[in-house]
C-alpha cells in the first residue's frame, strides 16, 4: 500500500502531470491577454496616482465604489478554501479529495487580489506604513488587516503543507523539466521521503489547521462586513451583516470552485478525477448555501422594509423600485434563484419529456426570442431620437414584456438541453452566481451612499450619482486578470489535483459510503 502511495505515476496521473508542461497556443494566448489586461490596469492606476482619485467616479457623497466592491467580492470568494478543505475534511467527505487543492488555490489567489483593492482605493497609498506605525485597534480597518493577514498565512500553509508529498513526487519523477523547476521542487519538498514520522506530522498539522481555519475564515468576512455595519448609515447599520456576508461568501466561493472544476476538467482533461458526481455533490452544496444566503437576504431586507422608517426609506426605495432596482432584482433572480434552479434540473425526471412538446423546440424558440430582442434594440435606437413620442414608449413597454415572455419560453425550451448536459449547466449556474455576487456587493455599497442622512444639495448633478469611470473598470479587469493569472500559473507549477490524497482514497481498505451513481466508482 505504501509503495502505491509513493510509487511512479499511473496512467491518469501521467495525464495530470502533463498539464504542468504542455501549453498549447490557447494557453499562451490566454497568458498574453491576461498580461495585457494587467498592464492596462497598471497604466490606469498610475494615472490615478498622478492625478488623484478624481479620475474615478467617486465623490464626497459616494466615497466608496467599485474598488471596495471588488474587495468584498474577492474576500468572499476566498472563503471556498476553508469550506472545501476544512469543513469537508472534518466531516469526512471523501469525495472532496480531488478538488480541495483547486479550492485552496482559489483562496490564495483571491485573498491576494482582495487585499490589494483597499490599497488601490487609498488616497495616500505611500502612507500605508502608518497603519503599522500609528495603527489603532478601535478601527475595523485594523481588524480587517489582522484577520485577512491571519487567513492568508493560514490558508497558504493549508495549501502548501498537503502539497509537500506531491512536490516530492514531482522531484523524484519529473526529471525532464527545466533545472529551475527541479531546484524549486527540491527546496519546497522539504526533504519529504514519506516516512511514518513525516506522515504523522503532516496529519497532525492538517488536523489542527482544519479546525483553526474555520473560525479564522468566519472572522474574515465578518469583519469585512463590519466595515459597513459599524457605521450609522441606513442599509449598513445592521446586526446580521456578519453572518449575512459569511453566507454570501460561502455561496460565491462554492460556485467559484464549480467554475474551476469545469474549466480544469476541460482544459487539462481531468475526467478521471473530476467526475459528474463531483458536480452533483458540489451542486447540492451550492443549492444549500444559496438557500441560506437567500434566507439571509430576505431577513435583511424585510425587517426594515416592513417598517419603512424615515432614514431607511430612501435606500430601500432605490433598491426595490428606484435606480438600483434592476440590478437588485438581477442579483436575486439571475444570481440566486436561477442557479439554484439550474443545479436542481438534472435531478428532475420529467424534464426530458418537455422535448416532445412541439411548441418547446429549442431552435425556433431561440430564433423568435432573438428576433424580438433585436426588435426591442431597434426601437430603443429609434426611440432615443424621437423620445417625446408617447406611442413609442408604450410600444417599447409592450416589447419589453414580450422579450421577457420570450426569455421565459426559451428557458423552458432549453430545460431538456440543460438536463442532458449537467456539467455545462453547473458551469453556467456557477458563473451566474459569481456575476450576481459581484453585483450584489455593489448594491450593498452604492445605494446606501446615495441616500445619506442629509440630502445631497448644492452639488453638481454628476456628484449625486455614482458612475464608475474607465479607470475603475480597467483596474477591476486587471484585478480579475491578476487572479486568473496567479491561479493558472499555480496550476502550471503544481498538480491542480492532489495526487497522494487521491491515491490514498483509492487504496483505502474501507470503502467509503457512496451512492449508487456508477460514475462515483470511477475516481
Amino acid at each position, binding site marked *: 500500500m505504501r509503495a502505491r502511495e509513493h510509487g511512479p505515476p499511473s496512467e491518469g496521473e501521467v495525464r495530470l502531470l502533463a498539464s504542468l508542461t504542455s501549453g498549447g497556443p490557447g494557453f499562451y494566448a490566454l497568458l498574453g491577454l491576461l498580461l495585457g489586461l494587467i498592464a492596462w490596469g497598471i497604466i490606469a492606476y498610475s494615472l490615478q496616482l498622478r*492625478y*488623484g*482619485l*478624481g479620475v474615478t467616479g*467617486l465623490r*464626497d*457623497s459616494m*466615497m*466608496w465604489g467599485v474598488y471596495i466592491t471588488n474587495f468584498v467580492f474577492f474576500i468572499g470568494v476566498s472563503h471556498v478554501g476553508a469550506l472545501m478543505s476544512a469543513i469537508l475534511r472534518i466531516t469526512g467527505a471523501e469525495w472532496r479529495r480531488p478538488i480541495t487543492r483547486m479550492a485552496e488555490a482559489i483562496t490564495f489567489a483571491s485573498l491576494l487580489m482582495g487585499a490589494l483593492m*483597499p490599497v488601490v*482605493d*487609498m*488616497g*495616500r*497609498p505611500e*502612507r*500605508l506604513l*502608518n*497603519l*503599522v*506605525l*500609528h*495603527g*489603532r*485597534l*478601535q*478601527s*475595523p*480597518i*485594523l481588524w480587517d488587516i*489582522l484577520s485577512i493577514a491571519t487567513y492568508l498565512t493560514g490558508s497558504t500553509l493549508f495549501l502548501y503543507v498537503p502539497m509537500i508529498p506531491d512536490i516530492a513526487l514531482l522531484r523524484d519523477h519529473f526529471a525532464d523539466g527545466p533545472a529551475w523547476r527541479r531546484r524549486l521542487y527540491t527546496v519546497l519538498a522539504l526533504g519529504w521521503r514519506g516516512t511514518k514520522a513525516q506522515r*504523522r506530522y503532516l*496529519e*497532525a498539522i*492538517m*488536523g*489542527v489547521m*482544519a479546525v*483553526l481555519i474555520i473560525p479564522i475564515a468566519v472572522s474574515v468576512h465578518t469583519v469585512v462586513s463590519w466595515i*459597513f455595519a*459599524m*457605521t*450609522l*448609515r*441606513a442599509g449598513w447599520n445592521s446586526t446580521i451583516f456578519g453572518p449575512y456576508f459569511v453566507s454570501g461568501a460561502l455561496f460565491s466561493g462554492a460556485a467559484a470552485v464549480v467554475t474551476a472544476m469545469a474549466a480544469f476538467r476541460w482544459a487539462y482533461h481531468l475526467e478521471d478525477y473530476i467526475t459528474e458526481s463531483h458536480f452533483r455533490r458540489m451542486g447540492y452544496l451550492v443549492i444549500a448555501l444559496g438557500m441560506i444566503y437567500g434566507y439571509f437576504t430576505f431577513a435583511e431586507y424585510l425587517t426594515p422594509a416592513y417598517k419603512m422608517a*424615515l432614514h431607511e*426609506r*430612501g435606500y430601500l426605495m432605490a433598491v426595490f423600485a428606484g435606480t438600483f432596482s434592476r440590478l437588485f432584482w438581477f442579483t436575486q433572480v439571475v444570481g440566486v434563484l436561477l442557479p439554484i434552479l439550474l443545479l436542481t434540473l438534472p435531478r428532475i425526471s420529467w424534464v426530458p419529456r418537455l422535448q416532445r412538446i412541439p411548441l418547446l423546440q429549442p431552435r425556433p424558440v431561440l430564433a423568435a426570442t432573438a428576433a424580438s430582442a433585436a426588435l426591442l434594440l431597434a426601437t430603443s435606437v429609434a426611440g432615443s431620437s424621437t423620445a417625446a413620442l408617447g406611442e413609442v414608449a408604450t410600444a417599447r413597454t409592450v416589447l419589453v414584456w414580450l422579450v421577457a415572455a420570450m426569455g421565459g419560453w426559451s428557458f423552458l425550451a432549453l430545460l431538456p438541453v440543460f438536463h442532458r448536459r449537467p456539467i455545462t449547466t453547473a458551469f453556467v449556474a456557477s458563473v451566474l452566481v459569481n456575476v450576481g455576487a459581484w453585483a450584489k456587493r455593489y448594491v450593498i455599497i452604492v445605494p446606501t*451612499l*446615495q*441616500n*445619506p*442622512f*442629509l*440630502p*445631497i*444639495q*448644492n452639488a453638481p448633478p454628476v*456628484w*449625486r450619482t455614482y458612475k464608475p469611470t474607465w479607470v475603475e473598470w480597467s483596474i477591476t479587469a486587471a484585478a480579475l486578470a491578476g487572479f486568473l493569472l496567479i491561479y493558472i500559473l499555480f496550476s502550471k507549477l503544481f498538480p491542480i489535483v492532489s495526487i497522494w490524497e487521491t491515491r490514498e482514497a483509492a487504496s483505502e481498505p474501507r470503502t467509503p459510503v457512496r451512492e449508487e451513481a456508477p460514475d462515483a466508482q470511477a475516481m
Partner: protein
Amino acid sequence: MRLSRRAFLKFLTALGGAAAFPAGLNLLTRRKGIPALAADGSPTGRLLQLDRVPAGPGSVALAAPAEPPERPSPGPAQRRWVMVIDLARCDGCRACTEACSAMHFVPPGQEWIKVYTMRDNPAADPYWFPRPCMQCDNPPCVKVCPVSATWKRGDGIVIQDTSRCIGCRFCIAACPYSARYFNWVEPPHTPEELSRPYSPDWNYPHRKGVTEKCIFCPGLVKEGKLPACVQACPMGAIYFGDQAEDAVTNSQGETVRFSELVGKNAGSRFLEELGTEPRVYYLPPRNRVYAPPPEPAATEGGHR
C-alpha cells in the same frame, strides 16, 4: 488526525504568542505618542473638573481618545467649545460658507459649513439649515480612523491631521452629517495658502488624497477671535463660546448665557437619536423674520 496533548498545548501557546503580537505592537506605538483611552476625554486620563458645567445628560463618557500631548494641536483642556445656531435668524445668505472658504482656502467643491434647505414634514415650511462639523462628543469618525489622523481634543474639537491621513475615507463613510470632504485631486494653491507651515489648527496648506473638515477655527480662537463663519454672519445667527464659561457670543457682539439660550429656547441637536452627542445646538426656526427658502427638490437624495 492523531495529535498528542503536548503538541496541541504547544501549538496553543504559539498561537497565543501570535495573537499577542499586534497588541504588543500597539503598546509600543502608544508609548511613542498614541494616547490611551481616557474616560472623560482629558489627555492625562484624570477626570476633568469643569465646575460650571452642570453634570447630567450633557456630560457624556467619551469612547474617543484624547489628543496626545506631543501632537501639534493639543487645545486648552479647560475649555469646552460650543456653537449655537439660531435657525429663526438664518436667511440662507451663505456668508458663513464664503467666509469659511476664504479663511481656510477651502478647496473647490467643499463647504465646511454648508447651508441646506430642510423641511421636517409636508405641513411645515422649509427653513435654512447651516451645518458645520458637529464636533461630536461621541464622534463616529474618530472611532473608525485607523491611524489617529483625526482625534478629539480636550476642548471638544474634533481635529484632523492631513499629514497623517492615509485617505481611506472611512471617516467620511462614518459621519452621519456629511461634514467630511476629500481632496479628490490636487487642490489649487495660492501664495497666501502656502505661506503658513502646515498645522492642524489652520488645516492648510491643503493636499491631495486626504480628508478635510470644519475644525471650529482653533487658530482664530487661540487669538481670542470668533470662528470665521460666526464673525461673518450678518444676522448674528451663529453663537460661539465656551460651555465651561457658560457664555456664547455672536457677530453682533451679543454675549449670552449658553444654558439660558439653549435651555429657554428649546435648543436641540441634529440627529440626536444617533447618540453622537454633537457640540452644535440649534434653536428652532419659529417666528422667522425672513422668507422661507423654496421647497427642496425631492429628487436630491437624502431622507428629508
